[in-house]
């Protein structure tokens, strides 16, 4: 049994809170937030120790791991404070607002050998993992292009008042939505080193981007497009899709299905020439406690197992999230200003 705590009781923090609290191998001993509303609810009904000062929480409790789900601008200082006390950290995405901070944190975990993970939950979806296997086995042949897309209904009107409507706090579609897609792109086909023709578009928001469009180029000549829009009400919830084109086939993959087109049969993978469809039901491992998608439970279960085993060889490490932060910065620099 390990002891854990959470900073931040927003949407992700609460969801993590429920999943950790229901986990058989973890004790959730303390939570920290600035809002008394959620804090009092947990104090009253769940019996966790509640704090408004995260330093005090980390100093007063003997913790094995910490979950950071505060607004992005606070990630770096909170993560650092925990690492200095030898506490393993699971941090929400995106990782850090300043590249220098991300770099420093990667260095600290390397030296201290602490488990470190970032909440890019798509990495725990059966469909995207299956696509990665197909790519690694070279089923698609030489890959020449990809598209990474995400759409959802977050900002649909001209108003807004949380930290997500302020880019200096890590708000906006690029940080919140596009980061997921960029992380997936790195996982599947590699990290782009050039962004060209990038557009950060305001649609309803006054201060942040509601859509991101960019052409991404890799060292090896592979190119792709990023198309992300969080002001699209034709989607009921966030929907992420990756299309990969290779000389021997093409794959269109989202959270629910992986559609594979092959030019020739592939007996080893039991795939035939033409279209093949694999569904998430075939590709998903069951979880012990389900809240809102297997991937959210799986990523936490995975982190807890790594903390118990003191195994720092984990996916979604700070290092991979730092790579994503760098691509975010690259797109920002290329776009120059909000269009």
């Amino acid at each position, binding site marked *: 049994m390990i002891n854990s705590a959470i900073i931040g009781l*927003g949407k992700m923090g609460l969801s993590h809170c429920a999943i950790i609290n229901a986990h058989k191998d973890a004790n959730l001993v303390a939570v920290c937030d600035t809002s008394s509303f959620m804090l009092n609810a947990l104090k009253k009904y769940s019996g966790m120790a509640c704090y408004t000062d995260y330093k005090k929480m980390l100093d007063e409790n003997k913790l094995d791991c910490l979950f950071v789900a505060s607004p992005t601008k606070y990630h770096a200082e909170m993560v650092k404070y925990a690492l200095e006390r030898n506490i393993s950290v699971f941090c929400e995405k995106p990782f850090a607002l300043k590249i220098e901070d991300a770099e420093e944190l990667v260095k600290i975990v390397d030296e201290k050998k602490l488990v470190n993970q970032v909440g890019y939950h798509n990495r725990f979806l059966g469909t995207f993992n299956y696509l990665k296997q197909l790519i690694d086995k070279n089923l698609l042949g030489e890959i020449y292009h990809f598209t990474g897309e995400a759409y959802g209904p977050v900002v649909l009107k001209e108003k807004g008042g949380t930290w997500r409507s302020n880019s200096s706090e890590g708000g906006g579609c690029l940080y919140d939505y596009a980061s997921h897609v960029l992380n997936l792109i790195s996982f599947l086909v590699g990290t782009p080193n050039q962004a060209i023709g990038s557009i950060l578009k305001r649609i309803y928001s006054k201060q942040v981007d509601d859509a991101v469009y960019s052409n991404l180029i890799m060292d090896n000549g592979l190119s792709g497009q990023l198309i992300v829009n969080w002001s699209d009400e034709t989607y009921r*919830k966030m929907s992420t899709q990756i299309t990969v084109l290779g000389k021997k086939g093409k794959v269109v993959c989202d959270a629910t299905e992986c559609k594979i087109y092959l030019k020739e049969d592939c007996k080893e993978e039991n795939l035939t020439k033409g279209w093949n469809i694999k569904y998430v039901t*075939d590709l998903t491992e069951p979880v*012990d406690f389900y809240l809102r998608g297997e991937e959210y439970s799986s990523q936490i279960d995975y982190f807890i197992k790594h903390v118990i085993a003191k195994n720092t060889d984990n996916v979604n490490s700070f290092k991979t999230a730092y790579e994503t932060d760098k691509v975010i910065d690259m797109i920002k620099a290329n776009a120059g200003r909000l269009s």
Partner: protein
Amino acid sequence: MERILFGDNQFFAVNHLSDEKSRAQAIKFKDNSAIIKVLDDMYDSGIHTFMCTTHDRIASVCDNLRSNPEKYSDFKIIPCMPYAHKYANAVTELGIIGTLKQYIPGNIIGAFTKGGLALATNDYVSLMELLVDAEIKMFKCIQTPAIFLQNVMTDLLLGLGMNDILVAYAKYIKDKYKVDPGFITMNLPLLLDVLEKGGIENPLICCSINKIGFRMSGGIELYERTLKEKRCRVIAMQVFAAGAIPPKEALEYVCKLDGVQSILFGASSKSHIVQTKELIDKLSS
């Protein structure tokens, strides 16, 4: 509770297997008249209970029922609340307090309203009651044999250990609305333990039950054992595991399962409704 209940996922572009199919459904059911037509087919086929989320568009279904009381004399609705995406999307934009202010009726800022006081004093049970009232409003004068809490809410409270709120919800539905409180969950064994500890005997629970164990947290064996013990009344949902199991095979499993009281399914066409109903009737006899 009837043996067969009709669900609403198909109307609101919920498809757990394909985003593309979701979009096709959104196009097909763009107009409320298309929803009402399928519900008429359901009613004519002999299924008289519609289990649905408290989605805004259900209001027009309710209006239609109230305008034709004779035609729909035996039409029942089982509301499931809340329609979670409405709140989840609002929380991303407005924060938790902002969302509560938006959805609790009346002037929440007013210190002397029930909502204002509840928010100011962190009276969570009162807030829960206000949100329930707001969600249930559209079902006025409609037969609602039970009112369910959606799985995201049930399982969030369950995970957080806020068992008292789950129990308070059940009590409120029973006392104020005089109907059966129900819970949708993806964690049947865990929830049942918690509800029993809270003094709720033989609760009404709707959960995934299917041959491949899809979304049956704790495992299919534990589910089957729990069902056999008959400690709760169970409505089986996701019996086709989002379409992963062929219909006949899926229904053969669930219809023969001891401890399943009702089966929930959704369909978009008359032939599909009739076929599924006939199959369930045949396999259940």
